[in-house]
């Protein structure tokens, strides 16, 4: 298992490097950040300033030199290069924001998984009942909702609810209060209060696709011969459902959820924008709007790493779920 993990991690490195190359190339095709940065300045800055700025950002080199310098910097020093704004340090900025975003993503994924497995299993077990139809309808509805729409809806709903009961139960702006309350317990509550609505909006979007998938996988399993055998042996329905059926039905689900991680990162960007969190999402939007190439690349590398790690965890989970799979 350990050797397999190491081998998988090593195999993931070329993928990550290839991904950075593609992204670096695509982003460099689009627009010159320095021209954009100085555009519309009156009087226009002297050529020397422009040249110095290009040199600082390593833009005065050829494309391949730029890329390999960037890669070498990342591998040897672990830095993402200078940001467009000289006062910003990309590494420390991302480091501070990573926790905020991961908090959102992980809790949303856990919530979505729990919801999806429960509704998926029940939908399959009670196929074509009212529960199944209701769950299917809501699944399709959430699947069709843009993330920002559901986030904005929950935000408006939360504000209305707060006004109705006269206290502030849901926080709708930021990831913590500007002035954190005293005591660690109150601070914890403050963080949780800020997290409820964003987590819910990200989880609902994610849950929709997963529950459909879980239902299909579960239906496949429930109609198989070994489940009929388990029933015929006289096992309790609950035991058949949880021990025999669910375990097998979780295997395709693991693949599906691992493939969605990249999408969830995108969804987190939207959710953070709506709820005005100071997370990685805000960082990405700012970098993209200012055409800050190094910052955008840094975001993508961090997100890509997490996607790869997520896929690896999924692969290792296969072995837990399916005893036939052994990683040597």
């Amino acid at each position: 298992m350990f050797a397999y993990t190491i081998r998988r991690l090593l195999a993931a490195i070329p993928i990550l490097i290839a991904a950075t190359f593609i992204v670096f190339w695509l982003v460099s095709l689009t627009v010159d950040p320095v021209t954009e940065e100085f555009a519309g300045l009156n009087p226009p800055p002297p050529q020397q300033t422009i040249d110095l700025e290009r040199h600082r950002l390593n833009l005065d080199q050829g494309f391949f030199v730029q890329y390999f310098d960037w890669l070498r910097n990342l591998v040897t020093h672990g830095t993402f290069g200078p940001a467009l704004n000289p006062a910003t340090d990309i590494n420390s900025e991302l480091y501070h924001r990573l926790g905020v975003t991961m908090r959102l993503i992980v809790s949303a994924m856990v919530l979505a998984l729990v919801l999806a497995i429960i509704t998926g299993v029940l939908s399959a077990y009670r196929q074509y009942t009212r529960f199944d139809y209701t769950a299917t309808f809501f699944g399709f509805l959430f699947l069709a909702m843009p993330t920002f729409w559901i986030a904005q809806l929950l935000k408006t709903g939360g504000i209305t609810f707060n006004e109705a009961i006269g206290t502030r139960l849901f926080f709708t702006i930021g990831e913590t209060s500007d002035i954190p309350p005293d005591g660690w317990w109150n601070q914890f509550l403050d963080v949780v209060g800020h997290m409820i609505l964003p987590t819910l909006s990200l989880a609902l979007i994610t849950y929709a696709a997963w529950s459909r998938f879980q239902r299909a996988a579960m239906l496949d399993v429930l109609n198989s011969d070994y489940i009929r055998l388990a029933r015929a042996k006289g096992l309790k329905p609950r035991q058949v459902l949880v021990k025999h059926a669910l375990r097998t039905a979780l295997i395709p689900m693991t693949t599906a959820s691992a493939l969605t991680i990249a999408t969830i990162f995108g969804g987190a960007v939207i959710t953070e924008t709506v709820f005005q969190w100071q997370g990685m999402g805000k960082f990405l939007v700012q970098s993209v709007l200012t055409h800050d190439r190094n910052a955008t690349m840094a975001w993508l590398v961090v997100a890509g790493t997490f996607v790869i790690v997520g896929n690896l965890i999924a692969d290792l989970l296969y072995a837990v779920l399916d005893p036939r799979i052994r990683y040597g």
Partner: protein
Amino acid sequence: MADTAARTPATPTIPSPRRPADGEFTIRERSQWVQVLRRFLRHRAAVVSLFVFIFLVVLAFVGPTLWKYSYTDISSPGGSPPTLNNPFGTDNIGHDNFARVLRGMQQSLKVGFSVMILATGIGAPYGAISGLLGGRVDTLMMRVCDTLLVIPLLAIAAAIGSGAGGTIVVVSLVLGLLGWAVMARIVRGVTLSLREQEFIEAARAMGASTLWIVFRHVLPNVVGAIIVQATLDIAVAVLVESALSFLGVGIQPPDTSLGALTNLARPSVDTQWWLFYAPGVMIILIALTINFIGDGLRDAFDPRQTRQRR
């Protein structure tokens, strides 16, 4: 088959009520496509969705030519809630919101369809070739897919879209050229089981080239999976485009899209709710109907999973 009876009333093979059902087998042979159609028609939500979706497409592409305002007109009273004259209200400048929503739908659907065509056109042959060749080529080609799947599509599309200028062409190209990996994986999966079958072997034995086998033998047999995924690709593209426009890096003014409209309306969602909800509901309607159609198509092409009773 009522139409058979109507067209050929004189045929003696029509079973008369007196004849027992276990007599000669008289029903006309059903081709695969007829079966698919019949199974699709049984999925009520999908059929309703298909009609709603066709209505939305017609509304988006024909509606603007018939409607009295164009999306650039600013002749309406500013900031008015929905009235008979402006059924979706107006914004502060005096744009008719209905005309703008129609334009937004048109642009969103255009993006959806072009992304679907691009993603299918690249992904399906790619997956088929990869699965058919197998071995090291397959591994390498799938690594390319893995690479694309590692990159969050929204983020990279945002990065490129903001640099290249947000026109509908750029957005469609970026989403289509980066979003075909899922299609490729699905087609490859089906191809892997197809390539061991005799008809592929026979084609090989007769000296058919790989490309011939791909387009002539493999892809026609994967068409069900391709159509289902292509349908869902439209919905995904519409949603991603709206998210891009929402972040301000999608389709730029003076043109508009459903996502851009909702983004503009977001600050005043409490006071001018019609500006936010009208385009949003249209996004949901488009994506919802497409997903239902996709679901119906999946049932129609793969009946294994639907009508099973325990």
